[in-house]
Every structure is written in C-alpha cells, then in structure tokens.
C-alpha cells in the first residue's frame, strides 16, 4: 500500500516537473518578458539592467531552478496586464472557480450516476430511451450555447435568476470568499453550475451505462444468475461494484476537467473566477498568468489522479491482495 502510494506520488512529481518545464519554456521564450514589462520609452540601458536584475542572463538550468523554486512558493511573477503579482490575482479568484466547480460536480454525480445505472440495467425501458436521447442532446449542445439559452430563458425572458457575477459574497478567513451563505450568491450559482455540469453529467451517465452493459455480459454475472441470486444482489452487489472500477477513474478525470471547462462558463456568465482571468491572459498574451494557470490546473489534476488511484486500490482486491 505504502509502496504503491509512494510510486504514484513519484509519478505525480515527474508530471509536475514536466509541466513546470513547459510553463517555464512558455514564460521564457514566448515574446520577450522585458518588452512586456516596460514601456516603449524605457532606454536600452534600463532594459539591460532590468534583464540583469531579473536574472534573465543566467544559464537556463539556473533560471529553471529559480522558476520552480518560485512556483513552490506560489510566486509566478508579475502579470503583464495588471502589473500585480500573479499569485494575488489568483488568490482572489480561486474560491469563485472552486465553488462553481464543486457545485457542478455534485450536480453531475447526483443526477448522472442514477440515470446511468437505470439506463444500463433496463436498456429497453422508455425511461432509458428518454435518458439516452436527452444525453445525446446534452452532448451535442456546446457548453457556451447552453449558457446562452439558459440566460435567454431564465434571465432575459423570465427574469428569475441573475445572468452574471457571483451575487453577494461573505469573507471567510483571510482570503476565501463564499457565495454559499447568501441568497443572491446561491441564486447566482444555479445557472452557471447547471451549464457547467450538464456536459459532465451526460458523459458520466453514458459511461456508467456502457460499463454496466459490458459487465452484465460477463461470465460471473451469468453464473450469479444461474445460482438463482435475486436481481437486486446481481445488479448492485456484483454488477455495480465491478462497474465502479473503470467509472471511478474516468469520473475523476471528468471532475478535474470541470475546472478547465469552467473557463467557458465563466466567460458566458462573467463569473469572476480564474478561468476568466486565464482567458483574458490568452487574449492579451499575458504569459505569467498563462503559465501559472497551467501549473495550478496540473496540480489539481495530479491530486485528483492520485486520489483516484488510492480509491482504485480500495475497490479492487486484485491490487490489494497478492497471489499466494
């Protein structure tokens, strides 16, 4: 167990190192950092001095080491657009994105998993067919268009829910702000989280259905039926548990990608999260923010993957218990 976890942790570190190398390359070689930092009127001497003081003339490995050391302290330099430390910009926006992602993930799981189980077990039922048709529509509607439709319906036409922003927020601790504690905050959360969660929900549902159908065909399910076990035991104790092994992996990845997809949703709803920050950085070639975003999402994915691997370990005895 410990060995297994240690090996996974080591792999995660390698991934992070590769990603930070990419981020560093991007930071260092896409455009000249000095040109981005100073105005047109700055003299060549001043530029050279700045270059020297930032260490841009040092050997590359040293610069990379400095970059990684900075990243470990959440120091990603200064934004070209805002002239502020990147870390401060992110700190303000991370709570917004995480709260949105968490709500969407819950929405996707709570609705998607039961739908998938039903559609997998009762393939021919009318409800399953309805779910499948809906899921196809859900998969075909681009996230941003779902957002636009929801805004058009609930904000513009019915005027029930706000179409942009987080509503009122409450500060918790030194930097976390939450929208969970106010009515306007909760109302503002509804449309964006449905928009963001809908696609993941359909994916999770279709995945569970497909896995269920595969498992139901296996010999041990046939044998369980031949032993006369009631459907309840066959379906939930045997089929569902075996379905979980692949489902947990992919669901984990999907939940991670919610944070990335949040970029689109945040744009549609003008949600003040880090996706919106990243998008503006892409539009304005603000490299420090881009590389920081890359590292932060990588960290998130690696963490989720690590947790998923541990879960895998708990579910599957073939990993846990060796052969005699």
């Amino acid at each position, binding site marked *: 167990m410990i060995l297994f976890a240690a090996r996974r942790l080591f792999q995660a570190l390698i991934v992070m190192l590769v990603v930070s190398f990419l981020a560093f390359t991007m930071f260092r070689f896409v455009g000249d950092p000095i040109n981005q930092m100073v105005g047109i009127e700055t003299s060549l001497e001043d530029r050279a001095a700045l270059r020297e003081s930032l260490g841009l003339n040092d050997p590359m490995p040293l610069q990379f080491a400095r970059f990684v050391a900075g990243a470990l302290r959440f120091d990603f330099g200064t934004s070209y657009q805002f002239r502020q430390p990147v870390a401060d910009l992110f700190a303000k926006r991370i709570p917004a994105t995480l709260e949105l992602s968490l709500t969407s993930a819950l929405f996707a799981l709570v609705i998607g998993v039961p739908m998938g189980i039903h559609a997998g077990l009762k393939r021919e039922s009318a409800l399953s067919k309805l779910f499948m048709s809906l899921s196809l529509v859900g998969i075909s509607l681009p996230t941003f268009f779902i957002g636009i439709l929801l805004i058009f319906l609930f904000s513009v036409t019915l005027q029930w829910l706000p179409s942009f922003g987080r509503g009122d927020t409450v500060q918790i601790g030194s930097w976390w702000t939450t929208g969970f504690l106010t009515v306007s905050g909760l109302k503002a959360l509804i449309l964006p989280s449905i928009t963001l969660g809908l696609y993941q929900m359909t994916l999770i549902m279709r995945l569970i259905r497909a896995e269920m159908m595969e498992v139901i065909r*296996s*010999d*041990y399910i*046939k*044998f*369980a*039926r*031949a*032993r*006369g*076990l*009631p459907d309840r*035991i066959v379906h939930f*104790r*045997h089929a569902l*548990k*075996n379905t979980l*092994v692949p489902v947990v992996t992919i669901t984990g990845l999907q939940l991670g990608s919610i944070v990335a997809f949040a970029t689109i949703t945040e744009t549609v709803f003008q949600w003040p999260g880090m996706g919106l920050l990243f998008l503006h950085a892409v539009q304005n070639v603000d490299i420090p923010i881009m590389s920081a975003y890359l590292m932060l999402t990588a960290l998130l994915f690696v963490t989720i993957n690590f947790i998923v691997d541990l879960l895998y370990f708990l*579910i*599957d*005895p*073939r990993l846990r*218990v060796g*052969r*005699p």
Partner: protein
Amino acid sequence: MAVLDIKNLTVDFPGRKSVFVAVNDVSLSIEAGKILGVVGESGAGKSTVGNAVIGLLQEPGRIAAGEIDLNGVRIDALNDKSKRKLRGRRIGMIFQDPLTSLDPLQTVEAQLVETIRTHLPLSAKAARDRAVELIGAVGIANPHERIRQYPHQFSGGMRQRVVIALALCAEPELVIADEPTTALDVSIQAQILDLMKSLCTERNVAMLVITHDMGVIADITDHVAVMYQGNLVEYGATAQVLGRPQHAYTKSLISAVPRPDVRVDRFPSIDYIEKDRTPQRQIDIATHWLGKARAYDRAGGPLVSVRELDMQFETRASILPSRRRSFQAVRKVSFDIAEGETFGLVGESGSGKSTIARLITGLYQPSGGSITFAGTELTSLGKRRDILAMRRQMQMIFQDPYSSLNARMRVKDIVAEPIRFHRLASDRSEVRQIVEDLLDHVGLGAAAGRKFPHEFSVGQRQRISIARALATRPRFLICDEPTSALDVSIQAQILNLLKDLQAELGLTMLFISHDLAVVRQMCDRIGVMRNGELCEVAETDQLFEAPRHPYTSELLSLMPSMELLSRETPADP
C-alpha cells in the same frame, strides 16, 4: 423416477431471414445419482439443451415444443420468478471457464454465503459454517482460511472447485455442467472429474454433463446422448453406445478419436462428416513448382539442432536489478530433429513447448543456447538476406484458425504474400497459378481464393493456413497445436492432410500438442516437457509402452481411458 425428464424438446432462434432450429425433438432423462453425458461437435445444440433446462436461453431463443419435467413437475412453462427460484435451489450449474465465472471483487465466502442465504433459511453464522463445510467437501485444504480469499488467489483448478461448491450450495437435485474441464490441463481435469463423480454418488444428485470430449464421456458418464446438428442421433448406456455404436455418425465420430493405445496410419475418412471437402484436383508434385528446388544440400546430421536453449521473460521490469522478476519459460533444452522426421513436443499449458517453436522461427530471441538449422547457427546470422533465406525454409501452422488469418485480406492474397515477398515466382500469372494449385492441393478448390477468411469453416481456415505455410516451399514445418481448436472429425481430416503433405514433400516437422493421443498418431519421436524443461525424449512406441521419466508415466496414467470405445472402423461406403 427420473429427476430430469426432457420430452420432445425443440428450441429455435427466430432470425431476420429464417428460424434456426438449434435443438430438434430431443428426449432425455436422468435418474438420481447418475450422470448423463451429452456429446457432440460444435453446432450440435448440446449447450442449448442445458440452457433450456435452467431457463437461461440466449435471446431470441425459445422453447418451441416439448416439455421439461423436474421430479415430475413441469418447469419449462414457469414464469421468470419461479424459474429463478429453481436455479441454484434445485438446479445447479457449472460453467466452462473457472477464471471468469467468479466475481473478482468479492471473497469466496461472500459469494457462497449470499447464495446459501438466498435459497436456505439460515442465519449468517450457519450459512458461513455451511460454506466452510462445502469448501472442504470439494477438496480445498484449510477451508477456514482460504474461504476468506479472493478468486484471483486461487489457481484454475481450485477455482473450478469453488464453482462446484457454489453449484452445490442448496443441495440441488440436478447439476448441469457445461464443458466443465475444457479449460483445464489434463492432470487437473482428471481430479475435477473424480470429484464430480464422487459428489454425484455421495449426494445422490443427477448430473447432466455437456462435452465435446469422448474421453470425459468414457470416464464418468452412465448414459450418453450423441447429438448432431440439433438432432439426437443415439442415446443409451455409455458402454453400449461407445462399444457398439449403431448410428453412422456415432461410428464415424468414435473412429475419428485419436487413441493413445494404438497408432493408425490414416484416420478413416467417412462421407458423413467430411462434407466440407470439395473434390480436389491433385497436382503432380514431381513436376510442379511446389516440388521444385527441394534438392537442398544435405549436410548430413540433424536438420535442426537445439542446444542448451534458455528463455526468460521479464514479468516485472524495474530499474533496480534486485526488484526485477523473470519467468524461466525454457530451461537448458537440447534436442535434434533429423531430416524427414516428425518430432513431437508434449506438455501441459505453461510447459514452454510453444515458446520453443517461437524461438526456432525467430519470433523470440533466446536468452541463451543455440539453434542450428541445416548446419548454420541461426543466432549468429547478421545479414538480413541470410536470415530471410533461413526463414523461407521454415514455416509455422498456428493453433487458432480465427486469428491466424488476416480478416481483411482475400485468401488468394494471404497465400500469395510469401511467394511475392520472397520472389519465388517470375510473374503475376505464375503467382496466380501457384496459388490456385496450392488451394486445390489442400482440398479447398481454386475458387476459394476470391473469398475472405470469414466465409470459411474452422477446418477450411486451417487448410488456408497450411497453404500459406507451403507457399515459401519450406523444408521444415512447425505445427503448434494445429488441431486443438477443432472438432475431432475435422481434426482427423487435418491430421491426414499433414501426413500426406509430409510424405509427398519429404517435410521435416516439429509437432506440438498437449494431446498425447494426437502426438502418438503423428510423431516418430517425442519429447515430454514440464516447467520449461525437457524430461524425456524417446521413440514414440517406446515412450508409450515403457516411459522412463516418472512425469511421463503420470501423464500417461491421467489420460482418459478409451478402452470402452469401439475399435471397429466403419466400412467404406
């Protein structure tokens, strides 16, 4: 009174174009404590009979006529819920593959207890005690400890014992076993058959054993039903049916079974089952392309000489040498094969016999030792052209007729590919002519070339494989379990074809099989392998009559006795 009574059962599968009748008007019955075997080749409908009894016919199959009675009560017309109550409670089922029959995520105990408590009103504690007792009864040592383990911690044979325990959970009146030993090695097969036989007598259970294997039938059944294409062709006491078969199909089936105790030059060919054979146009080997360039310079001495051959597979890769694990598939194996001889290698699965075939053909690189072919050491060859020249002289026929042919190529391209690649013909029309002749010669007919592999039966596919192997004009042919995926009647034809080809072309053969009886029919000398080592090499008759190595004797003693089987060869029509 009979426990199971099947009367005039007909099962069909309505399809898009026609209705396929899988079982046609079959009547059978079994008494308590007796074993009835249903034997037949693939497509005979024998498994469908078992599935119909337990009420698990695959969609869209249905019982079209007849009835099934269990202890005098009709069970085929019950609703789904009542049928489910029969399963496990009154009818137990044993499947073919023990590796996939058990839920990998649940302990053996959990699976036993849930089955027991579904059918019997027992407390958790009592159910557990019963589970332990059952595990002990099927011959698993330390039942208290082993019951807490997961299926992957058991070997194949042990898992099949667990499956049997699960089938016996609620003291059923009838047990249906569908090919219960097909996935197991000979030695394990013998143990499982013994166990089934003794449980059947002790617990007074009626048993329906479905198998393609005459050996299993001869070993354990009291009565036997022979099925052919959905019809019951012969039914009676086992000794009677096997000893004095009445029906022409039964006679030909029995005569096609290779015997370990006698050697025949050719298997008798009977029109009854040789239907997929098209009339063949014989080519004159002496003047034909296939017979040309056979004048290899005979260096004298053996054609193939294997010395101290070693092969390790890495099972766990690691940067640290101390953490690497490897598996020794072949260990210090040495043997010679003389020109024109057929050399056999036998052994159970994992004994390393197929690895040797792949080492000789160069599919694997040996970890140590040498392989000499016609005086040239193969591992020392460096130039690609020299390697190709050697490759051309040795060809291989594989086990699985489904995967050994590329499904996306026409048969004529499959056979022509080696000729084109090695530039063995001068122009395209010659290639076409050779391909047609080859297909004719292996008994498929020249017209077969235009089709794709999926349009052929398994036996015909194996003939295509043989034609492809002949297309390089090889001198040495390796047959790796060439008939183990085939029904006995098809096996007899393919073995005959191989014998004919060897005689005509003077081929040298390495024949690999797990089936001692087949090896006896085919080989001049035999090597016995176990755990990667070669135990014994001897002349065929000597090996069977006076084995020197204890493992050889053990293997011979485990072979199903075929003494019951009729020796009579059906008279030529």
